[in-house]
């Protein structure tokens, strides 16, 4: 039974259990649960919704928010203030209770996601403190410590939403419905290009950018979504308790929420629910510790991080995987394997005879160091152009300028007949530039297939809502993306490794995967940064065949490489750099005979060398 089906069955069981819980007393013939227990379950469900949102942020986007409680509280206060002061209906106030925190999240995230990790942590803490400070001090508006009390009971379609065991508790089922929707949304986002883009951005920023993913936008959206969930939880909370004040939304609550995510297993689908259940239960126990309660939280957080960094679900999944995986020998296929259907990859090359790349007097300086100095080069469409030179000659820097990772200090780059001015890597990727990296940059905790699917990110047309609702176009595109990923895996001979974590592949296979992933972009121009480094002789032969095959099908390839045999076998033209300047350019034969090239490599041209007596 696949993990996915197990998951859905577990969710069904959970939903039925929660739905049946209020009627438990009728079954066992006791007055249980009372309204008190019902409220506990409702509060746990609300927390689970918030935690699901935080899980998307922490588990997928790899960002830590230490102010999630403030966003939760913002939702609660928006709902409370609107219904108390402005007479908004339940539905109206709920919409804004989601929208306002989501917007706040985007605003908070935008400055901080450019610089990772710590900054967002600090900014979210600061936001949390500001929030509590305002709530506490602006007594006229928020009631200060006495908070906002006596909220009107919410009604929907004229029906009052109640939470009392003996009369009516329809609000209980409403919260359950929202919880199930949240679980669905979590699933729909995680298993889509959006979720993959978030994980990709977390695991290798550079590779994600090179595949056409806008990192700032992706992370901002991730934070906004997660804040929206927090706001939803807040709105539901305010309408349950009919009273809010700042005490429920302090820094400690933020830590508690984070602990729930990590305890359950961040990035897993079931983690938030399990983490919330366990910790919420533990909280009821920890309350008996009195003044040592917070200490207990600290110990618990430390213990989880030491003993189960992957959380309950994550550790269980790892165990299951270890038990299930028999040491099955897997065959590596031959590559390149031009199977049917691969034509799509090279179907739209740059026009024949065009200059795919024109670099015009590119200069790149880092402070006082000139890495590239007035380099001009032109690369014809459908050709293989090698960029060679001794270490530190500026080859990789040049490649980084062409792919947008470095901004040229001076000079112009024209790609596909279009002048690109300081375009970001993801923009260039969307124009048709793909690249590999000198030190392979895979999304090491994603599967081999998922790595390639990230490469197909920009081919999707289905928008966020379509993806969330799983409309037909989403399914169609996802199917075709998966089919293409499988073809590409077959192409580089990695079919049998499709479900392996990319980080577990042997080195040579990682190189193959990186090339396949770049090809998933269906690029017009492919930049390869020392693709042969570390490969065996046989693998290099295959690589040559692959590069030639791509060029023969119209793709333009620029190659930075040291391996001389390979350059001779594969290149149409060669540009030689030394100390950041072009010292020779032309066909392979012409460059090979050039005395300046020989001098650059051997220090001294052979003509001046002292003959050695044989």
């Amino acid at each position, binding site marked *: 039974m696949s993990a996915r089906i197990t998951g859905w069955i577990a969710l069904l069981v959970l939903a039925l259990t929660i739905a049946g819980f209020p009627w438990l007393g009728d079954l066992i013939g006791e007055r249980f649960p009372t309204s008190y227990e019902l409220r506990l379950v409702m509060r746990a469900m609300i927390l689970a919704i918030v935690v699901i949102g935080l899980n998307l942020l922490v588990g997928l986007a*790899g960002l830590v928010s230490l102010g999630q409680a403030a966003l939760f509280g913002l939702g609660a206060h928006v709902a409370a203030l609107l219904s108390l002061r402005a007479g908004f209906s339940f539905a109206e106030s709920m919409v804004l209770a989601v929208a306002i925190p989501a917007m706040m999240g985007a605003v908070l995230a935008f*400055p901080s996601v450019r*610089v990772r990790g710590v900054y967002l*942590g*600090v900014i979210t803490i600061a936001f949390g403190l*500001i929030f509590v400070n305002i709530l506490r001090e602006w007594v006229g508006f928020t009631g200060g410590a006495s908070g906002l009390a006596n909220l009107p009971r919410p009604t929907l379609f004229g029906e009052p939403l109640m939470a009392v065991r003996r009369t009516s508790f329809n609000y209980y089922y409403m919260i359950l419905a929202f919880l199930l929707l949240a679980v669905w949304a979590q699933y729909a986002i995680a298993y889509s290009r959006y979720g993959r883009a978030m994980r990709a951005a977390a695991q290798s920023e550079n590779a994600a950018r090179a595949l056409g993913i806008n990192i700032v936008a992706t992370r901002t959206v991730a934070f906004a979504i997660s804040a929206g969930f927090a706001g939803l939880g807040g709105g539901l909370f305010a309408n349950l308790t009919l009273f809010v004040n700042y005490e429920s939304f302090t820094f400690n609550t933020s830590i508690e929420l984070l602990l729930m995510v990590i305890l359950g297993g961040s990035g897993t689908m079931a983690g938030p629910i399990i983490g919330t259940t366990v910790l919420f239960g533990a909280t009821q126990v920890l309350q008996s510790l009195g003044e040592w*309660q917070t200490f207990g939280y600290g110990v618990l957080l430390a213990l989880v*991080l030491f003993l189960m960094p992957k959380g309950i679900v994550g550790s269980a999944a790892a165990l299951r995987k270890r038990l299930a995986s028999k040491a099955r020998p897997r065959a590596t296929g031959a590559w390149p394997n031009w199977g049917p259907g691969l034509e799509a990859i090279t179907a739209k090359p740059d026009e024949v005879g065009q200059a795919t790349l024109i670099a015009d007097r590119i200069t790149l300086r880092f402070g006082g160091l000139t890495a590239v100095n007035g380099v001009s080069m032109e690369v014809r469409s459908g050709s293989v152009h090698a960029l060679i030179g001794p270490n530190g000659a500026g080859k990789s820097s040049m490649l980084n300028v062409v792919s947008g990772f470095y901004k040229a200090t001076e000079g112009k780059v024209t790609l596909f007949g279009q002048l690109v001015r300081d375009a970001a890597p993801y923009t260039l990727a969307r124009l048709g530039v793909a690249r590999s990296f000198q030190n392979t940059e895979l999304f090491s905790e994603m599967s081999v297939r998922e790595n390639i699917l990230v490469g197909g990110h920009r081919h999707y047309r289905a928008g966020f809502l379509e993806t969330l609702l799983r409309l037909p176009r989403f399914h169609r595109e996802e199917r075709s993306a998966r089919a293409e990923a499988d073809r590409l895996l077959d192409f580089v001979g990695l079919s049998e490794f499709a479900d392996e974590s990319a980080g577990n592949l042997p080195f040579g296979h990682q190189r193959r995967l990186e090339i396949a992933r770049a090809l998933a972009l269906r690029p017009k121009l492919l930049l390869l940064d020392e693709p042969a480094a570390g490969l065996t002789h046989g693998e290099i032969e295959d690589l040559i065949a692959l590069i030639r095959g791509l060029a023969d099908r119209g793709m333009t390839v620029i190659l930075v490489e040291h391996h001389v045999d390979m350059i001779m076998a594969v290149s149409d033209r060669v540009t030689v750099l030394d100390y950041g300047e072009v010292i020779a350019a032309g066909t392979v034969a012409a460059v090979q005979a050039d005395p300046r090239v020989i001098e650059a490599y051997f220090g001294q041209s052979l003509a001046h060398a002292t003959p050695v007596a044989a």
Partner: protein
Amino acid sequence: MEAVLQYLITGISAGAIYAMIALGFYVMWSAAKAVNFTFGDVFMLGGVLTVVLREMGLPLLLAAGGAILIAALAGAVIERVFVRPFNKGANAIGWMLTTIAVGTMIESSTTATYGAIGRALPTPLMDQPVRLGGAGVYLQELILPVVLLAMTLALEAFYRRTMLGRAMRAVAFNRVAAGLVGIDADRITMVAFALAGGIGALAGFLVAPIVQASSSMGVVVGLKGFLVAIIAGIANARGVVMMGLMYGVLEKFVEAYLSTAARDAIGFSVMILILLLFPQGVFGRREVQKV
């Protein structure tokens, strides 16, 4: 005019505390590219332990020395146990959570044993305010910027002139290369955390007579110190100190002319705005990302 002078002096004095804490963050960050996120609790230990040791009968300076020593040791332990194992890989964030966990433990156990209420730490420097151009300040407040200046100079001298300090700079600059020339980078990092712990505790001891030593004295101050360090661009000691002083002054003027209640809300908002304008920090340099 007198009022302005008064705000300026008390602002610089409060800012000196932020600057010292920010310096501690700077020392940790340089060595490990990670920090004790709840460094404010080490700062708190400086104040609280001095009070406790004094109540046990030690003379003031000896008590302070003991507190600083214990806090330095705590810093080293925190590095070894809670930071190092969770700081593997370029984008590790585990240390953030583990240090929050240990900070929570330190703070709540202090509350449970020492009590939730602050206690006074009497010093001769708080006896009588001195008049300074019409403004009244305690010597204890005046001493803070002086100590800060001495601390900054001593730290620079340490980094430049001593073998240990140079090794620390080498580790900050390139951990792997430092290891290759025989520097035990892990050990140096631990020493850096101990040094930071000492700096934080010294600040806690110095401020305790003014604010009273309590278990919660470190939380917000620690966060402000961290924000100050980040806003300044955490890799620049002088920038960090400047920013700390400026933030202290800003706070006093907000209190004086806008609102005491909204001081932190305004201060934090200003910091978020500055970060929006200078993502690398005001005195920080943009790091070239190697591709």
